[in-house]
């Protein structure tokens, strides 16, 4: 039976020891990836993969990622909503992994809203 072995787990734990220590405190930024059938079919999983890689690289602990269902705008999927305390929520449309990386680096990390990709502000 193949399972993740204890060694695997220990290795993962060691490699991430530095970052697992701080996981409390409020999230300042919430990123929602919309994962309805429409979003998934349009490529939301690839967007999520890119986001995960960027998150792992950025090593920030005040960013929370959540998935949600369809918000009714299926034709503009994959949609991603970025909410922060300072600015109003922005819904980005027709995302792919490159767009996600740009939104993460510019909007999430630096606070510059990427109006080219935006569908709406809420």
């Amino acid at each position, binding site marked *: 039976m193949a399972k993740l072995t204890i060694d695997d787990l220990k290795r993962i734990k060691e490699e991430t020891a530095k970052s697992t220590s701080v996981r409390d405190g409020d999230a300042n930024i919430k990123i929602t990836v919309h994962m309805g059938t429409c979003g998934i079919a349009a490529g939301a999983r690839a967007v999520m993969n890119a986001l995960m890689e960027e998150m792992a690289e950025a090593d920030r602990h005040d960013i929370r990622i959540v998935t949600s269902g*369809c918000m009714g705008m299926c034709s503009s999927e994959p949609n991603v909503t970025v909410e922060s305390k300072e600015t109003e929520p922005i819904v980005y449309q027709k995302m792919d992994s490159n767009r996600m990386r740009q939104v993460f680096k510019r909007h999430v990390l630096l606070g510059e809203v990427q109006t080219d990709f935006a569908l709406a502000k809420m």
Partner: protein
Amino acid sequence: MRELSLHILDIVENGITAGADCIHIDVIESRVEDFLTIKIRDNGRGISAEKLDKLKDPFVTSRTTRRVGLGLPLLAAAAERCDGKLAVEAGTIGGTEVAATFRYSHIDRAPMGDMASTMTTLLMGNPLIDFVYTHVIDGQEFILDTRELKKELGDHSLEDPIVIHQLGESIRTSLNQLISNADKPEAREKNHGKIDD
């Protein structure tokens, strides 16, 4: 959908929307007996009996944002065009059980695809929900149980993107190993079906 793993992601999201806190995903591939089964079990609020009959109708949905629901109808269509079928039942422990079968060698069967990404996506977006993912290829088994992982690594460890990323890599390696072991029956004999240890 292009990959069966995307269907899985979609159906699991249904369970999460239904308020489940533990979801079992079973994938059984048997090349010898020529079938592939995907089972997804959740402990959410379940589906009422009258709705159960209408599940494959795309114009029946519990959602309010739009009037069509395509998740289960798409999976049903994918299964049926591969000589298989979709069965949705009330689960034994409450919740819902979705089972899709496919003829493994059918030319229209979509590839399994990137299950590791499906799992990491689920983990990333739903840190409070437990997943038990079992993948069997010709009798060779892989199990990922987040309840065990959380016990081993600490409760909040699976919220860390670096951990999830690593975990994704581990899943990918294990699944590849599973496939290559299933491809070499003589190796399996030698190790009595065990992949590691």
